[in-house]
């Protein structure tokens, strides 16, 4: 057996500190690097009305200085060790990372311990960041595909907070105050609500000693999440039309998707691979280009026939049920109605006929390869460990391969029959208008 054949996440050490902080350590001695991620179980799905976008804005503020790291000194700490740092917020999580030479382990842990306990939220910095966040939102509005996605999500979901964009609604970004931001920070940035992940060229015992030194002094306290309202069942098709100046038309079709913990999730993942090609399960690696999809059903039916120039499917693992979204870029001169009709015909065909054994085998093979490809760096491995610990709990990541392998033809047929029905779908169009 080649030394690479063993799964890279097969030997993770999991500890919980006395203050409730979960720590995951995975030694990987493939390069002289270490990646440190700190994950918080809070995202845009935890935001009440009026405070949409607060998790993301708080993430920005957590790069703006702490008691022991002034804002203008953050730059340079890990860079000296060839490091990079960043963070992101999505529906269930807010997370921060540094990847650098493993000699910078102390510095990386120090930064994360400061971030958890001692961010400043200086009032003037909060104000300056308001316009930065609004600029980020407006940058997204330049992209018609993103505009349509936001409208589609807000139409498909009516009560669950996944309905609003992670960046928030403009009105809330204009009205939120420093007090709101700081309250959010203090409520959720506590050890019990966090997972610290360290992957790389490290010694596990040494890591744990250092983690204890930096994080044990942070007091534990209970976390009070708002209760997320359940989405009420959809019983009729919904439609949304966006008309703006633009050059290209887009169509999106969304269906309610199961939560990551729902047994149906893996059957739908396989079905998505049959329809649009397998993407794997890493949000961190999700933007690396098109999946293997030229034999997939929707590619063949739409791109193959010249109706669309791009087809994609998005089924992302989330804590609560969310959306499975199919997206199409209309080929130049093709009417959106014609594109939608053919897409719906194909969807109806898979709903009534299921998939073939050959398609099932191909989808599983693609997913197996993707799971290998997305473990290609200490940063990617650390991301996957933290992501699934945060949204689905301990042990989930290790089971993904076997759960995909055990999906049957009947299960894929059943998930298509139950979920891809007309009454549950939401259809969105972006129809470009000539410049006024």
């Amino acid at each position, binding site marked *: 057996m*080649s030394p690479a*054949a063993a799964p890279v996440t097969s030997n993770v050490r999991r500890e919980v500190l006395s203050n409730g902080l979960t720590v995951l350590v995975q030694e*990987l*001695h*493939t*390069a*002289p690097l270490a990646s440190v991620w700190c994950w918080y179980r809070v995202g845009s799905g935890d935001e009440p009305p009026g405070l949409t976008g607060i998790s993301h804005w708080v993430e920005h503020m957590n790069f703006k200085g702490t008691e022991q790291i002034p*804002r203008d000194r953050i*730059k*340079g700490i890990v*860079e*000296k*060790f*060839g*490091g*990079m740092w960043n963070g992101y917020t999505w529906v269930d999580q807010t997370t921060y990372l540094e*990847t*650098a*030479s493993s000699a910078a382990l102390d510095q990386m842990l120090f930064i994360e311990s400061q971030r958890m306990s001692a961010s400043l939220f200086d009032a003037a910095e909060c*104000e*300056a960041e308001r*316009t*930065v*966040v609004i*600029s*980020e939102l*407006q*940058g997204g*509005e*330049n992209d018609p595909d993103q505009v349509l996605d936001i409208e589609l999500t807000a139409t498909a979901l009516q009560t669950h907070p996944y309905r609003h964009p992670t960046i928030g609604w403009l009105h809330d970004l204009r009205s939120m105050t420093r007090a709101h931001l700081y309250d959010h920070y203090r409520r959720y940035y506590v050890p019990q609500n966090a997972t610290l992940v360290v992957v790389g*060229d490290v010694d596990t015992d040494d890591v744990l000693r250092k983690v204890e030194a930096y994080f044990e002094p942070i007091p534990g306290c209970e976390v009070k999440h708002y209760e997320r309202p359940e989405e009420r069942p959809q019983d009729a098709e919904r439609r949304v039309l966006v008309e*703006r*100046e*633009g*050059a*290209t038309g887009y169509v999106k079709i969304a269906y309610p998707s199961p939560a990551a913990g729902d047994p149906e999730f893996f059957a739908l993942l396989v079905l998505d691979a049959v329809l649009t*090609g*397998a993407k794997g399960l890493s949000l961190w690696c999700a933007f690396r280009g098109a999946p*293997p*999809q*030229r*034999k997939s059903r929707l590619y063949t039916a739409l*791109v193959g026939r*010249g109706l669309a*120039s791009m087809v994609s499917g998005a089924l992302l693992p989330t804590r609560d049920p969310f959306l499975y979204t199919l997206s199409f870029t*209309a*080929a*130049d001169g093709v009417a959106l109605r014609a594109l939608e009709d053919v897409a719906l015909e194909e969807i109806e065909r898979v709903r009534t006929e299921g998939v073939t054994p050959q398609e099932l085998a191909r989808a599983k*093979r*693609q*997913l*197996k*390869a*993707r799971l*290998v*490809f997305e473990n*290609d*760096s200490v940063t990617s491995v650390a991301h996957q460990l933290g992501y699934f610990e945060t949204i689905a709990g301990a042990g989930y990541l290790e089971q993904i391969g076997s759960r995909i392998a055990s999906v049957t033809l009947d299960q894929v047929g059943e998930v298509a029959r139950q979920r891809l029905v007309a009454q549950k779908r939401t259809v969105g169009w972006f129809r470009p208008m000539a*410049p*006024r």
Partner: protein
Amino acid sequence: MTSIQTLSRGLDPLRTTLDNGVVILAQESRAVAAIALNATFFAGSVHDAENLPGVAYLTRRTIDRGTAIRSADDIAATLDDRGVSLRTAVTRHTLSLSCLCLPEDFDEVLALIADIARHAVFPELELEKQRQEAITSLREDQDDPARVAYDTLLDLLYGRDHPYGRRVKGGLEALEAITRTHLVDFHRRRLTPSSLKVAVSGDVSAESAVASAERAFADWVGPVAENEPIAPPQDRRSRSCQSIAMPGKAQTDIAYGFAAVRRLDPRYYAYWVMNDILGQFGLGGRLAENIRERQGMAYYAYSTIEPAEGEGALVIHAGVAPENVARTIEAIDTEVRLLGREGPTVNELEETRDSLIGAIPRMLETNESIADFMLFAEQFALGLDYHHRLPGLLQQVTMDDVKEAAADILNPARAAVAIAGPPS
């Protein structure tokens, strides 16, 4: 055994040149049970005819849609059945076919890539499909303010007559005029053994990877592709500015820049360090510190410098609210002028050098990045030991070198400025 330990110390690639000129580079890495494959030809948009830009681009789009022995559907099945996504890409100078595959599929995928590279037939029907997709993609670019600002900047810096001012995707008219004969001719002239470099990195022994590549390419006979040097762009004596109104957009994109130096110019390393200080270090160097951190005007403000055969561009990018365009350009002018006149601080120079040197292991972590690095070193004849020499080359950059580089290029009075966004 070369393996995990080797990579902890750096690369140890095997390099072979076949009699027909094909260069094969192989690096064993057992970190992940996968292999990255990249076949890159020295064939890009600079090789397009002046009056027909877009041929290299359409060649890239259509090359994997049929060979003498495989239909587009056969190729799709071979790839999809193995979970392989074949990426085809074209730049100004290169056309590449690359992918990741599982070790058990390596020989078959390599044979497929060789067949595509050598025997592509560009079926008429597939060309028509790709032409339509290319037109849609071009229209999307024309609707993207960041893209429009960047393309306009290249017009200002190089002009449409210069190979670097030419659009890789051509234009609507050219895309409609290109025929199958153009693609076949481009393929015959430019995709030849002497212009091909093949890089393999991953869970396979270097010897075995080289042997497989040799089997796939050794009997290929083809003409030698001639390469014209890239002429320098015209000297810029004054500032130029162009605004493109894009109704319906929410944010304005600014592209501000200069033509810099060739990758093989000895001053390149000083330019690299200088650019990092200006618009990379941390989340965007001095530019982000001013425009984003202090003034809160933009989500992104950073600069890039392009390592190219000819004088690539140093480009500053910023996305801002329409009402902040003037203030942002003023802030860019200030930072450009200041670094140009005074150079960096000692601390900035040291931190940046440490950061660039320290980042080398990250640059060489994944199989894809190792393959890219080997090809880059090969393209510019930097040597098999480039990764060993790179820290020294960066370390040798002095304060005077960086000051000189900054003084040479960073002058707002000679900048090109392109602005695309909602009408004011």
